[in-house]
């Protein structure tokens, strides 16, 4: 009888060792190979975020982040549908990437130093520049965030918005009172029901909330932007092969817009172009694809199936959508138009 605990112990040690060795093996293989073997991409998104990832009653996902994921699938497999969307809560996003449950995280997450350095992620590029703002009722007469002295502000708890609000409050000595909420729609409803004087969130989120009001003209977004929110996509840390694929897929979206290639005219351009830059980009010349390990026509597939950055923006955030965000004059315009979107050279 004395022997049982000993053998149990040995079994436990062996089990642990096996698990450990598996974790080791996992780290050695690039996500790129895993994805190719699996045959589809696992993309980590959130539950819902208007304009960035929403599912309709047919079960089709759409939004900015969805298109980022689809473009990577189009680059790797030549088929934008070969992607599975896993919606997870904020708290779970980092572990999903670390555990390998997701290959790519794109859920409107702000690129911050602490997330980049201590959560096992590598942020790669920013696809949307946002900033935190305030929304008030127009009849309140408030014209600037500095007028919000002593006001009550509705905010989502656990977000960077809450922290930024505290900072802004302290640095300007505004003595604002915060009312925290866990659910975005409840927060918005509370604001509309006059439970707080102002509401704070990323400006895109404010625009979405404003559009749901009974009469949107009753509400105004204040001009101040109190934070930098660079919404970026990320992959598992220290996996350059995979990071390159994702990074350059996004670069292709921007590059295509710079070159004036859209999903509509790409076939014609491919046939008629004499521009070596375009030829290289579309894989008609050169061997840019080899370093990435992608098919020769990967950029063509991405633009043909998903469209360039401008098309993606228009489709999800542009004037015809619920958010109705103007692009010109903001940071999200191309660098030629004074924005921050700048594709590195395809050479």
């Amino acid at each position, binding site marked *: 009888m004395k022997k049982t605990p000993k053998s149990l112990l040995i079994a436990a040690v062996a089990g642990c060792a096996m698990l450990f060795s598996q974790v080791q093996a996992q780290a050695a293989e690039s996500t790129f190979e895993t994805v190719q073997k699996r045959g589809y991409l696992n993309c980590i998104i959130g*539950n819902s975020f208007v304009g960035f990832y929403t599912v309709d009653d047919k079960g089709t996902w759409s939004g900015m982040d969805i298109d980022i994921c689809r473009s990577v699938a189009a680059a790797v497999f030549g088929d934008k549908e070969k992607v599975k969307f896993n919606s997870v809560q904020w708290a779970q996003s980092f572990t999903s990437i670390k*555990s390998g*449950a997701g290959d790519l995280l794109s859920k409107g997450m702000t690129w911050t130093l602490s997330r980049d350095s201590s959560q096992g992620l590598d942020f790669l590029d920013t696809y949307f520049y946002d900033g935190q703002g305030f929304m008030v009722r127009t009849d309140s007469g408030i014209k600037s965030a500095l007028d919000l002295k002593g006001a009550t502000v509705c905010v989502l708890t656990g977000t960077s918005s809450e922290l930024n609000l505290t900072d802004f409050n302290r640095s300007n000595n505004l003595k604002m009172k915060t009312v925290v909420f866990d659910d975005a729609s409840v927060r*918005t*409803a509370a604001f509309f029901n006059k439970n707080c004087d102002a509401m704070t969130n990323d400006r895109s989120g404010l625009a979405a909330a404003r559009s749901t009001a009974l009469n949107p003209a009753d509400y105004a977004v204040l001009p101040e932007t109190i934070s930098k929110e660079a919404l970026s996509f990320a992959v598992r840390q220290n996996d350059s092969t995979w990071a390159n694929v994702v990074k350059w897929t996004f670069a292709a979206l921007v590059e295509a817009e710079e070159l004036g290639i859209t999903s509509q005219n790409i076939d014609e351009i491919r046939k008629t172009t004499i521009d070596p830059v375009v030829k290289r980009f579309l894989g008609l010349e050169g061997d840019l694809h080899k370093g990435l390990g992608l098919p020769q026509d990967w950029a063509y597939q991405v633009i043909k199936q998903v469209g360039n950055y401008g098309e993606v923006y228009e489709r999800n955030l542009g004037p015809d959508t619920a958010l109705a965000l103007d692009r010109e004059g903001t940071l999200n315009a191309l660098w030629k138009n004074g924005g921050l979107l700048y594709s590195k050279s395809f050479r």
Partner: protein
Amino acid sequence: MDNQQKKHGALLKFVPRPDRPPITITYGPVGWLKKNLFGNLWNSLLTITVFFLLFLLLKPFLEWTLFKAVWSASTRRECLSISPDGACWAGIFPWVNNLLYGLYPDALQWRVNLAFAIGLLWFVPLALKKVQQKILFALMGVMLFPFLANYLFLGGDRSSVHYIVACSALAYLLTLYINIILTYLNGKRLEQHLETFMERFSKKRAALLGHSTIWFFLTVVIAYVFKDQALEHVGVDAWGGLFLTLIISGVSIVMALPIGIILALGRRSEMPIIKWFSISTIEVVRSVPMITVLFMSVTMLPLFFPNTMELNKLVQVLVAVCLFAGAYMAETVRGGLQAISRGQYDAAKSLGLGYWRTMIFIILPQALRIMIPNIVTSFISLFKDTTLVSIIGLFDIMLMARNISIDKNWLGLHTEPLVAISVLFFVFCYSMSEYSQRLEKKLNTNR
């Protein structure tokens, strides 16, 4: 009177009796109102005040839900322009299908319906009086039905073992129903026809052998008939809505009881390893919130498996929920076990029954009967707890309902879907509690 009349011999003058008091209606609704609500001035005043308060409370609610509600519109904006103070039920209708089936393809939803219909059929005979061996076929249902349901829900290329088990489930149900019909027609049960033949092999188990033979035969027939029917694959990620909620709560409710009983018996056991294993399982699982157990199973489990192995999210959730429900059930069962007096154990011992026989035939039947209200309460709370899986991104009915508020056309519509699904939840929970009360009454009459 008669004597008096005879004595006097003469007719007495007719004296009318005093008038009866006016009729007070003590029956029917009017009588009830008078008796209970307007008995005296004080009661009348109270009634009027309370009704007035009720009216004040209900009026805005009814106005919002019914009188000012919008029933048909194509967007929320349109709803708001028609009636800004009313509910916008129009937004629910396009989503009803999703609320019920999740993202299950429309054309294949008959499979879900069929599986649930078969499931219902399986449990209908439990309510019939003449049916015997209810426990046996309930057990068979619990063991076989999941295979059949899974086969129908999932479709695609399943292993042949799975296919055969699914067919055998169907065959078993068929024999069950044929037998029920035969019993009601006072005919011989199926296996009784074969009994004389089977007695050649085994006198004692002739009926069982007969039944198994018919069952086996039917399985083969069914397997042959459906062998070319290929079902299109529908991945688990497309399951959702009420369908998913019912799967999760159904599986966990069915699993909770056996896990609970085993853990409870383990906890009361005198063998130290079993005892401490049970205690630690129960206490660890019970001391953490369900959401933590869910997170653990979803984020930690993949760490223990190789990268390429896809772990089904639903299975992870089911494991977590079953474990959680089992741990709670264990304590409920233990409470029931402790309510059984020492005398019952001693009596069983003096009859020479061993541990398992004592438990199965003496203690558990009594204990379970006492525990019905508690068990059903935990089932109901479990049913509601399953909405937590929306947090880890399974599109159950809760997440589907919340999703309506971010649909492009229905942006901001978040109250109405929640009201709608709370009605649905009420229906389910209330019928569960009604059923438990009927069960209690039925079982108590035997005492």
